[in-house]
């Protein structure tokens, strides 16, 4: 198959020319793509990078003509092997889908039909594309496909349903389905953004091997520039429905020309953490000189903020006399009773004798993969769940016996911000009421003073006051997370527990929120417990790091130590998994 392509290397496999897509809305047609050009040669890897809403996924869906009902290709052409896909009939495009172009969708949780078994859904794809005939043949091929995609005991798991699979396993199933008929092109739309870094790495390595072995070209969509640069030869940067920059990855990363790409390079935490590292060294080496020359010329403004903020904090923390511990946790353990495979009772140690303390006014990051017990620790701190054993002291007071009034007072001083800015705001309450709700609950002040406080909070998180009358669905993800932070701050807490508070956000928004958090910390001398699976973010925000694995803290030290000299194999693995960590940077 690949030999015939090698004979004509000049012809691109996929050539998108001036593609335009519009969506029908109540205010007429809205253009989502305004002339996109992409060229992909056979067997090569290309990444499309951009923030959400830039048109990356729309481009992917337009290629295989699967735009949602209200979307339409309004101009340009999609040439695949010389044929214009946008002009094919239903039957013809159906023949191309799956057979010649495989598709791996974004969200592994929503992309498998919950009512059919995994085996059924894989076999269906194989049968539709005529890969194998007959019951036994199809089943054999399905098991083979799943095994190739890295699902170990595929033959045993064929009869299981999607809800019995973890996110990473579901993504493997989807990758297996996408590759099941050895297509010439595989489109992968954010294939790993819902996954932990270590799982992400395994899956991407695997995808790379599979596509290399079969000579499949890969069109890969991501919002993480570091990831794109590490995995793809070619890079296409999209912004507001246009391609603003394209070319070889390393070149773009080291010498971004378009201002948007420059901002993207600067803000990517995976890359920024590298910058801080190099930045710190130069501070030590040549105290007083700019962190890195040429940064301003390149228009890298965001990164300077992040880097200098982190550096300044390190100074500040080092020079502040110890103010005592705001949070102290001793031998904290949580055991859940779960039902085993045969309906027998089993116990699960979600948190296993965890010890840590956080000094007042500092940030501790709790890092680990999903399932490592991070969030359980947070819930116990907030007294949303009771500990099985161990002790939590807030300002020296044991929280376990608190009840009623005292518990309410504790909650007032300790506020949470959760991961999902979509799920943690009530869609039926406007922003003003959402932010003011804690004030109502704790009966702080009168109506007028509460109103004033809401406006003050909106100012603090840099949101316009006019937003108070609007509803969550009218806000972007970043704005919603700001609202969640404002709500957490409304009672003037001393401590804020941030559970994956920036994980769901785009890099640029993530940078804004991280900066906002560090400003607020300085201003209000807050204590943060920052829970995340993303070590890159930790580098920017935290003073100390505790790494959790399987319910235990396996490593705890200052951020510098953990990054500079990780002791545990597991921590090293997490650090290595930061995408783009090995890319030499031009700055």
């Amino acid at each position, binding site marked *: 198959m690949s030999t015939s392509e090698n004979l004509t290397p000049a012809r691109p496999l996929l050539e998108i020319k001036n593609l335009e897509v519009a969506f029908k809305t109540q205010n007429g047609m809205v253009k989502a793509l305004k002339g996109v050009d992409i060229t992909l040669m056979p067997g090569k890897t290309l990444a499309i990078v951009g923030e959400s809403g830039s048109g990356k996924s729309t481009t992917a*869906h337009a290629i*295989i003509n*699967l735009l*949602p*009902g209200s979307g339409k290709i309004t101009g340009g052409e999609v040439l695949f092997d010389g044929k214009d896909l946008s002009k094919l009939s*239903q*039957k013809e495009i*159906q*023949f*191309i*889908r*799956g*057979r010649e172009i*495989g*598709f791996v*969708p*974004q*969200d592994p949780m*929503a*992309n*498998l*039909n*919950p*009512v*059919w*078994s995994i085996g059924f859904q894989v076999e*269906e*794809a194989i049968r*539709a*594309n005529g890969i194998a005939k007959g019951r036994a043949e199809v089943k054999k091929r399905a098991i083979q496909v799943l095994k190739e995609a890295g699902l170990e005991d595929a033959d045993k798991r064929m009869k299981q*349903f999607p*809800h019995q699979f973890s996110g990473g396993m579901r993504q493997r199933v*989807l990758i297996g*389905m*996408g590759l099941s*008929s050895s297509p010439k092109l595989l489109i992968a739309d954010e294939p790993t953004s819902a996954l932990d870094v270590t799982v992400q790495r395994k899956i991407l390595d695997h995808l790379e091997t599979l596509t290399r072995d079969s000579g499949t070209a890969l069109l890969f969509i991501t919002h993480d520039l570091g990831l794109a640069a590490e995995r793809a030869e070619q890079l296409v940067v999209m912004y507001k429905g246009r391609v603003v920059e394209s070319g070889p990855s390393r070149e773009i990363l080291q010498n971004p020309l378009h201002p948007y790409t420059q901002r993207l390079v600067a803000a990517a935490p995976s890359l920024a953490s590298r910058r801080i590292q190099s930045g710190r060294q130069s501070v030590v080496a040549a105290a007083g000189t700019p962190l890195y020359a040429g940064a301003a010329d390149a228009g890298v403004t965001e990164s300077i903020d992040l880097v200098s903020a982190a550096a300044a904090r390190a100074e500040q923390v080092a020079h502040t006399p110890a103010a005592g511990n705001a949070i102290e946790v001793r031998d904290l353990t949580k055991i859940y009773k779960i*039902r085993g495979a045969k*309906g027998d009772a089993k116990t699960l140690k979600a948190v296993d004798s965890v010890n840590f303390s956080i000094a007042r006014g500092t940030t501790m990051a709790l890092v680990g993969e999903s399932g490592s017990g991070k969030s359980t620790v947070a819930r116990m701190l907030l007294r949303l769940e009771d500990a099985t054993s161990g002790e939590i002291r807030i300002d020296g007071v044991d929280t376990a016996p608190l009840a009623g009034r005292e518990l309410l007072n504790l909650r007032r001083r300790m506020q949470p911000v959760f991961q999902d800015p979509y799920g943690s705001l009530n869609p039926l309450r406007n922003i003003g009421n959402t932010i003011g709700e804690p004030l109502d609950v704790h009966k702080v002040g009168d109506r007028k003073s509460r109103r004033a406080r809401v406006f003050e909070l909106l100012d603090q998180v840099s949101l316009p006051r006019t937003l108070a009358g609007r509803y969550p669905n009218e806000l972007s993800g970043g704005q919603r997370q700001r609202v969640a932070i404002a709500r957490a701050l409304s009672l003037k807490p001393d401590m804020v527990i941030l559970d994956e508070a920036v994980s769901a956000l785009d890099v640029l928004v993530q940078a804004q929120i991280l900066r906002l958090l560090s400003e607020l910390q300085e201003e209000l001398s807050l204590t943060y417990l920052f829970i995340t699976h993303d070590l890159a973010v930790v580098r920017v925000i935290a003073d100390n790091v505790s790494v959790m694995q399987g319910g235990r803290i396996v490593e705890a030290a200052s951020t510098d130590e953990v990054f500079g000299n990780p002791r545990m194999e597991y921590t090293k693995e997490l650090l290595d998994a930061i995408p783009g960590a090995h890319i030499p940077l031009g700055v």
Partner: protein
Amino acid sequence: MPRYILGRVLQAIPVFLGTTFLIYFMVFAMPGDPLLALFGDKTPNPALLAQLRAQYHLDQPFLVQYWYYMTGIFQGNLGVSFSGEPVTAILARTFPVTARLAIMALVIQSVAGIAVGLVSGLRKGKLFDASALVVSLILISVPIFVIAFVAQFVFGIQLGWARTTVGSGAPTQDLILPAFVLASVSFAVIVRLTRSSVIEAQSTDYVRTAYSKGLGRNRVIPVHILRNSLIPVVTYLGTDFGVLLVGATITEGIFNIPGVGNTLYKAIVLGQGPTVVSFVTVMVLLYLVVNLLVDLLYGLLDPRIRYV
């Protein structure tokens, strides 16, 4: 699974005791002496009256009457109606009629409702969809007895396709028109339920993924869209069974069908305690069984729900 079914059966016991007690109490509390009503204008012989009272335990306190009734039930004796016919015999005579009517209605409402709802959902905003929405809204908002009278007038009198009243024995072809009337309201609800879940399913990620695998509409619609859309419809069918029983009472009255509903209505009017209580008890038990079946079916349709 067996444990789950056992649990549900055990749950039915307090429900059974509670409903029989409640209904018995309400019949007992009804004003007027049912025996006096039997004699009409004649003045009964006091000795005969006393004998009848003793025979039906009407001279005993309420709890004692209830006790006699309950012990009877567990011996398979549902009591005797005032006309002297055992209640079990009345049940055996009327139940098959209503069962036929209800099953016909159930088939009509589910088959037609799901079919119309599916086409409607797939052609959202088109003429078919708009008409289906208007018709279903009319059927939902008009009371069932109005629909019944209109159907009798149009199909029975104007067109002459069907008999307006059903004779004794209730031949199945006579039950077709009443079955359509009985099915009408639930049909409309099922159309709307199916339509909205089909529309929702069409825009799910897993449907897009199914198309991206190279499947055609002929496969995606039944396997990925319709199958998932049936889950809320099946849930509705379970709770709807009660509505069906109530509707049967009205429809049977209008079409003069000698079924459970009709008999129950007459028994209530005459204050025939044993008949009313027995009929309602059987209906309650039936409702519990149907809902257990629906819940089990639900587990088959949606593997995320497992009964352990």
